[in-house]
């Protein structure tokens, strides 16, 4: 699975936020997209999933060579694209277990067998150290920030997408929760799967080591490199990037 983002321009009702973004994520690769608040990272994630609040005005998104720029979010999901939300929606009246089953079945011809689903859910909950009673709660209703993030990663583990975008999954997590979540992501890294990890901080990248790092500023990718770029950023901060770009 290859995700290609070509010259992507994205706007909201008010203004253009992305001014031509190019990025390629190939199978087996883990990319980190870093940038200060308001640089357009989450906009890119939402545009990739087809959020109707974001309009692509120029450029395109290809998944395995196929243009998905105009595809509905559910088609993208069924094609293997996944996003872990920074602020996932609350779904009242729908339990975590029922929601998971619905999502799993959306990608299958035949519905998953009850027993098989139960085992899969248990295995992934153990991986993320999630309590059993979690599954009967309504999705994200009354969840703490950490619980919401774990529920997102639990979905990632259940759905086994080919390409996963993690939007600020590390924000608001304490160090123990971060380790567990990062452990879950690492357990899913494999030659067939790509990751795009969006983050403000370098902290998570100590646990999930990226192959490539991209730095976004004001709606453009301004620096690219290997994981050493993250270390440099950690040392010098975003102001350094801003000055470099201005120079």
């Amino acid at each position, binding site marked *: 699975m290859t995700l290609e983002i070509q010259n992507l321009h994205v706007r909201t009702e008010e203004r253009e936020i992305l001014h031509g973004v190019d990025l390629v994520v190939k199978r087996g690769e883990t990319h980190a997209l870093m940038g200060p608040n308001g640089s357009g990272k989450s906009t890119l994630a939402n545009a990739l*999933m*087809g*959020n*109707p*609040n974001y309009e692509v005005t120029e450029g395109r998104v290809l998944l395995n060579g196929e243009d998905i720029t105009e595809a*509905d*979010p*559910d088609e*993208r*999901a*069924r094609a293997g694209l*996944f*996003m872990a*939300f920074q602020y*996932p*929606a*609350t*779904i*009242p*009246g*729908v339990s975590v277990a029922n*929601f998971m089953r*619905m*999502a799993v079945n*959306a*990608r299958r011809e035949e519905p998953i067998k009850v027993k098989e689903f139960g085992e899969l859910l248990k295995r992934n909950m153990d991986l993320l150290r999630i309590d059993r009673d979690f599954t009967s709660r*309504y999705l994200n209703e009354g969840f703490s920030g950490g619980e919401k993030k774990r529920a997102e990663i639990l*979905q990632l583990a259940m*759905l086994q997408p080919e390409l996963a975008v993690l939007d600020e999954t590390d924000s608001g997590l304490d160090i123990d929760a971060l380790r567990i979540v990062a452990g879950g992501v690492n357990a899913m890294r494999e030659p067939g799967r790509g990751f795009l990890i969006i983050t403000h901080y370098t902290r998570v990248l100590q646990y999930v080591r990226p192959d490539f790092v991209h730095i976004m500023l004001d709606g453009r990718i301004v620096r690219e490199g290997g994981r050493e770029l993250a270390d440099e950023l950690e040392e010098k901060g975003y102001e350094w990037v801003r000055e470099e770009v201005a120079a």
Partner: protein
Amino acid sequence: MPPEFVEDRRKAALEVFERERLPRWRRSGFWTTDVRKLRLDELEPRRYEPLEELPEIVREHLGEEEHAGLLVQRGASVVYTHVSDDRIVLTSLEQALEEHLELVEPHFAKRLPYDEGKFQAATAALWTGGAFVHVPKGTRVEKPIQIVWLIDEPGTAQYAHTLAVVGELGECKLREYCLAPDFEGQALHAGAFELYAQPGAQVDLAHYQDWGGGEVHDVSTKRVEIRRDARVKWVPVHLGGHLTKQRLDIVTAERGSDMRHTGLYFTEREEHLDLFTTDKHEKGHTTGDTVWKGALTGESRSSYEGLIHIVPGAQETHTYLQTHSMLLSPKAKSDAIPSLIVQTDNVSASHGGTVGELDEDQIFYMMTRGVSRSEAVRVLVEGYFEEVVQRLEDPGLEELVRRRIAEKLRGAEEQVKEFIGERS
């Protein structure tokens, strides 16, 4: 001969009925409920012979569940009665006045004045058949007591009166179903329902209304009185009716009484639903909890007005009221009006109301999990109602309600899709 107090009430009510015009209720804002299109003169209280077997529509709704007793009134006649728990009384109200006068008289119409309006007067004057339920002191009845009001022909006027008395420390489940198949033409159900929960009684009450696609007008008053340390859980469910104008009142009448009132409605096509509920606390140290949820499709209209009324001296009352309605079509309109009259201090009472639409963020979220838009809408609406449906605590009835909501959503799929699509 029926007892004098019943006949006197009929005569007095008939005068009111004949004097009053067909009403039109107006409220500030866009709301008007108008029954002047009802051709009352063309309707008649149709009489029917007793039935050996239950009509299919009744069987469909009641399912296989065993009951403590079942009474069916079709049009103006009680056509079927079956009591399997002989500790209770379940008969037509007419028969109860002959055979159980001592049980009926102390409660009959105690909280149902005949002069509250034209239709209330009509019911008081013209009721026939009727239902009487009595659960004796200290008796715990596990299986539900079921009453069915059936209108299966256009041109029918049904004047309905139910009186239910649950004795001290008695416990029961009481279910009323208002049913009609789809037909062409007008009909009227003018209903009066009264329940008296005696001290320490526990009553699990549900009303299920689905008058089908015909022009059934339902103008009814339902009142529940809860005495000392008694508790009533009441779940009215409105799933169909051309025009419904109802008043649903719960009175916590003595210390320690507790009410939990949870309602649900789904309107479609050009249905018109006008509900006014009151949660009245006549004594202190009482508790209440009211939650109503509705959804609308088509060009339907709903108005829910919920009043909490705490009378002077009713201190230490704790109650709250919440109402929500969800618009699923651009042409539907809804009003939610929670209100509060508190005439004493040292109480806690809160209320809130919302009218909203489906949340596009929720739909997007679900779609990113591979769920289609229409499936997402269905799941969100069902999830929205789930809190209320679960309060029925009756698997058979819950299933029926879920099934009907799913059917209505399927019927409205195209317009909902268009509506949501328009906005995104």
